[in-house]
């Protein structure tokens, strides 16, 4: 993973000192809340229902044992002993005191972490495929480009006061595990006919009040031109994005208003004027960054490894279930990508205690060449595990409640913090997730892959628009109701879910989801996933099941 040099370290030290002074001025009454709010948001500090919430950046979802241990220490020392992993691969602490945040940022800086730009109208954490560098279907590792984008976008003087937030995601594999098509800028790594690396650039995707799938603005951009092209897009957005209406300020609205052709004209005109930009990436620069992400020295599998594993799988059905559900094919022979589920049925999705973090740090060291990652689905990944280690790893994870065999299944639910924590929410999401996961867990295997996503308000941090089944909490005269959508998808075939009828009260949600699943199980063809069934049979069977008189 990327290691800071002296410039990166001093950059952070300067910013921590600057922030410390900003807090001092706020507490002394020299800064109004309005002015300070802008500054604290640039360091990911929100004021929520119960306390300040600090959102710490985990660049493209990559963590080390050292970082994870520090996060555990921060959880214990400054919070209530746990953290929450988010749908943008970051981590949030919910019980933070403003007066302690300068010390927290100083402790983060010591291990090359920060909370810069995890909020505010600026370029946010650039997210990536959590299987980067190890997936069997990978074309090219997205992480070097994410690190390049991270540095370029950090406290960019021209683009720190945008009309609204700006999110970029990068994928380098055949399967899109980064939800690229619903980002403000999405990047798919491609190779042209000459075999050169470049990007398909998409623009104007996003969720929230007006969900839109991104459109291709440039089918192939040579990798050297990445940053100038991003600047061209940002410059057009900064100039023309709406600033009069909070709900119409994202770049997706601008693209929708102009149309993709006019947007492309504007961006390409600006890009053409930047032909000698100092941001053009020389091969040596890309190579130097890429060197930080070289694969570890994998052990070659021993001849008997598979046989030994096979015996363990045959004699321990629970292990076999977990290996089947929570591991994915790895490029290196004899290895697997392990998903650590943070979705124990009946518990808040994506939460992780300090004790669990410390255990995971040790397991990453022992079993994963010192690396662990965060997915946008609020789970963790150990990316470099020997298959022969799977039984022992599973046992160790199980002791800490981290071995739930539900990756990608019905009880692997994404949920935002919702009204239990968030001042923007209209309804609670965690209790719905807990109830549903507890109810569905026993049927996980029967149902198969099913992505249920829950948001507590229209800001859609739970990504409900792109859930196979999406649930949106709304407030009807002070009472919590839940609107249900079906047929969404977040991968390379991204689609927005369709609303199937009026919102249902909280007590009806489980019954409603059951009814939808029944329709799916009844009508699906062999191997057909929920969104495919929706497309094939249409919404009518689902509507009837939910709203027809009993």
């Amino acid at each position, binding site marked *: 993973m990327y290691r800071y040099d002296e*410039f990166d370290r001093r*950059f952070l030290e*300067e910013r921590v000192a600057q922030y410390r002074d900003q807090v001092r001025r706020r507490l002394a009454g020299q800064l109004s809340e309005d002015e300070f709010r802008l500054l604290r948001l640039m360091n990911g500090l929100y004021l929520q229902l119960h306390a300040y919430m600090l959102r710490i950046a985990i660049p493209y979802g990559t963590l080390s044992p050292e970082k994870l241990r520090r996060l555990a220490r921060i959880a214990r020392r400054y919070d209530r002993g746990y953290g929450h992993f988010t749908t943008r691969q970051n981590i949030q602490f919910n019980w933070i005191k403003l007066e302690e945040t300068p010390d927290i940022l100083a402790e983060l800086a010591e291990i090359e972490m920060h909370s810069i730009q995890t909020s505010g109208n600026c370029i946010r954490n650039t997210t990536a495929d959590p299987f980067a560098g190890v997936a069997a279907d990978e074309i090219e590792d997205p992480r070097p480009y994410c690190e390049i984008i991270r540095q*370029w976008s950090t406290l960019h003087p021209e683009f720190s*006061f945008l009309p609204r937030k700006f999110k970029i995601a990068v994928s380098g594999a055949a399967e899109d595990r980064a939800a690229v098509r619903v980002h403000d800028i999405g990047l798919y790594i491609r190779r042209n006919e000459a075999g050169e690396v470049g990007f398909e650039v998409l623009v104007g995707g996003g969720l929230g009040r007006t969900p839109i799938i991104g459109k291709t603005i440039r089918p192939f951009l040579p990798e050297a031109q990445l940053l100038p092209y991003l600047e061209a897009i940002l410059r057009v957005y900064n100039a023309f994005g709406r600033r009069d209406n909070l709900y119409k300020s994202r770049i997706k609205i601008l693209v929708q208003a102009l149309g993709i052709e006019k947007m492309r004209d504007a961006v390409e005109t600006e890009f053409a004027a930047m032909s000698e930009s100092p941001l053009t990436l020389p091969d040596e620069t890309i190579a130097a960054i890429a060197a930080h992400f070289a694969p570890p020295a994998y052990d070659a599998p021993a001849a008997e490894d598979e046989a030994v594993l096979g015996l363990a799988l045959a004699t321990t059905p629970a292990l076999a279930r977990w290996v089947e559900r929570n591991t994915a094919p790895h490029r290196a022979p004899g290895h697997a990508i392990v998903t650590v589920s943070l979705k124990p049925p009946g518990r808040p999705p994506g939460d992780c205690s300090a004790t669990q973090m410390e255990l995971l740090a040790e397991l990453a060291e022992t079993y994963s060449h010192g690396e662990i990652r965060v997915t946008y689905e609020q789970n963790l990944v150990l990316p470099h595990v020997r298959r022969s280690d799977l039984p022992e790893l599973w046992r160790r994870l199980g002791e800490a409640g981290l071995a739930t065999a539900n990756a990608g299944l019905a009880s692997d639910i994404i949920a935002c913090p919702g009204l239990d924590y968030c001042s923007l929410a209209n309804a609670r999401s965690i209790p719905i997730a807990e109830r549903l996961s507890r109810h569905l867990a026993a049927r996980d295997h029967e149902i198969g892959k099913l992505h249920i996503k829950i948001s507590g308000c229209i800001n859609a941090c739970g990504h409900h628009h792109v859930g196979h089944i999406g649930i949106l909490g709304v407030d009807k005269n002070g009472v919590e109701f839940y609107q249900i959508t079906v047929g969404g998808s977040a991968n390379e075939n991204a689609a927005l879910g369709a609303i199937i009828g009026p919102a249902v009260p909280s007590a009806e949600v489980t019954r409603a989801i059951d009814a939808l699943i029944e329709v799916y199980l009844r009508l699906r063809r062999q191997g057909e996933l929920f969104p495919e069934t929706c497309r094939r049979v249409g919404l009518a069977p689902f509507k009837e099941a939910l709203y027809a008189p009993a």
Partner: protein
Amino acid sequence: MPLLKDGRIVEDPWRHLDDAESLPDGQVATVSLRRWTAEREALSRRPGRLGLRLPNDASPLALADDLASFDLVTLAFPRFTDGRAYSQARLLRARLGFRGELRATGNVLRDQLLFMRRCGIDAFEVGDRALAEDWPRALRELDLFYQPAEDGHPWIARQRALAG
């Protein structure tokens, strides 16, 4: 209104004329973009220093041929969250080669000064003189940046290359 310029708080020597006000020769004055557009011929031939007040929704690129007439361009920050003028500043400096004074006016926060200077702004209207005593210090607070910029200060990539 006083200015922060060259590290000090100074009085503003410029007059900012309404469109109807007469423009005596030799008077150091700024005019609106509307007036410049209407009286371009006459104004460009007028001796003495002239400045332009650029609204933050106007394209600087359209002024490429006109910039030689100005010693000052003022940029507008109607609210501190409105960042359009940062892009205008960069275009004026980097693309159009403007060498005169680029001044930030409007709602300017102390903690935005460095962003503005990195975009090529070299003068700042001071709203509250008492608070602005601290502004020169704000401009010296940080010296490491990840992007190339228009204030002549080398960015991190350049510093890395120099460090070898």
